[in-house]
């Protein structure tokens, strides 16, 4: 896991956190948006992935924060692999407690803005 949030003034900004695993094809990187709701969450609440008022500009900004976070927390070849992954193949993961979900329409809207796969996960 890696921290991806920044703060100026009193507000935290950015994806909730980043994470990655090693796979036979290289690193799989996840940009995680976490909700505490045990129900289907409406699209507008996924602001960090471009579903709120700021649209794609918010997602683009948050990728900038994630890039900087990777440069701060990793170094060398691993840093470069992670940067390459968030530029290209990273996956958006929406996570929440048992019962949490997002509609197909929401998932497609997020895919459309972020140009990357979206999955839903349940916190263990």
């Amino acid at each position: 896991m890696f921290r991806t949030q920044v703060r100026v003034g009193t507000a935290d900004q950015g994806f909730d956190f980043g994470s990655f695993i090693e796979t036979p094809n290289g690193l799989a990187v996840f940009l995680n948006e976490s909700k505490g709701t045990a129900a289907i969450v409406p699209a507008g609440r996924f602001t960090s992935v471009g579903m709120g008022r700021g649209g794609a500009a918010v997602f683009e900004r948050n990728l900038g924060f994630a890039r900087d976070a990777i440069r701060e927390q990793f170094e060398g070849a691993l840093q470069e692999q992670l940067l390459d992954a968030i530029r290209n193949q990273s996956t958006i993961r929406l996570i929440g407690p048992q019962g949490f979900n997002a509609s197909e329409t929401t998932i497609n809207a997020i895919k459309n803005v972020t140009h990357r796969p979206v999955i839903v996960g349940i916190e263990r």
Partner: protein
Amino acid sequence: MRKYDETYYYHKHARRWRRLRNDWSTILAMNIYKSWDSPILMPESLVEDSSFSYALECLLYGDRENGNAFLNRTIEVADRILAENRCLWEQTLATTGYPRNHAIIQRDRAYAKWLLGGDFDRDVMKSCARQLVEWCLTKANDHEHFTDAFTMNYYVQGIRAAIIACDLDLAGELVRTKQPLLGLHGHQRDLWRKLIDMYPDLTDEFDGEFETFFDLVRDPDFQERVGKARNFIIRDILALETGIIREMYIINASPHRNPDPENVLAAVAR
């Protein structure tokens, strides 16, 4: 009398370079163009994160061989992105970041050419200043009222670019923004405003304040933290540009004289 050379960070650059000594060739061998057939969502990242920043890390340690290889990669990737207009390609996320991304690519390419011994291109810096600020004031998600560390960071980068372009009229206009700039961004705004207002009659007190700021931001481990979170500051570019401004306005007799890249690198790395 304050000693200006009392803070040394060179050992930090050296330790990091040694830790990564086997990684530089690995990173250089990675195919930076492997996803070129797909939309490039953050073109500036290829130039800055994956080329220019590594060049700075190597150069600040004194590794010219790898440093120059990364500088050449910076120029090559930037040339290709700009030639193929990848910042405005297929209405992808890259267009959301335009013209901020375009400014960063042009600026880092100009710095790379200068660090390789070429001329210092002030016209590029002026264009970069205008593009960075244009993005902040028209396309950033909070452009009507800055609340975002991201926008603040790039607005202040625009002010620095105007100062480095020797366009103090433009810099003076930008620095008088009513937009809120918080934390280190606000501190920078105040420092650059003093420089613009006082120049050429800079006082010893100002020089001391400038050196204290320079010492702070050239520390490779510097971060501004608010609780557990941190402010968004592209530190390596900030340190380099503060070093350039120092060379132009404090060390040299005239800011119109080209800053010496070796002097700037030595001052940042010392």
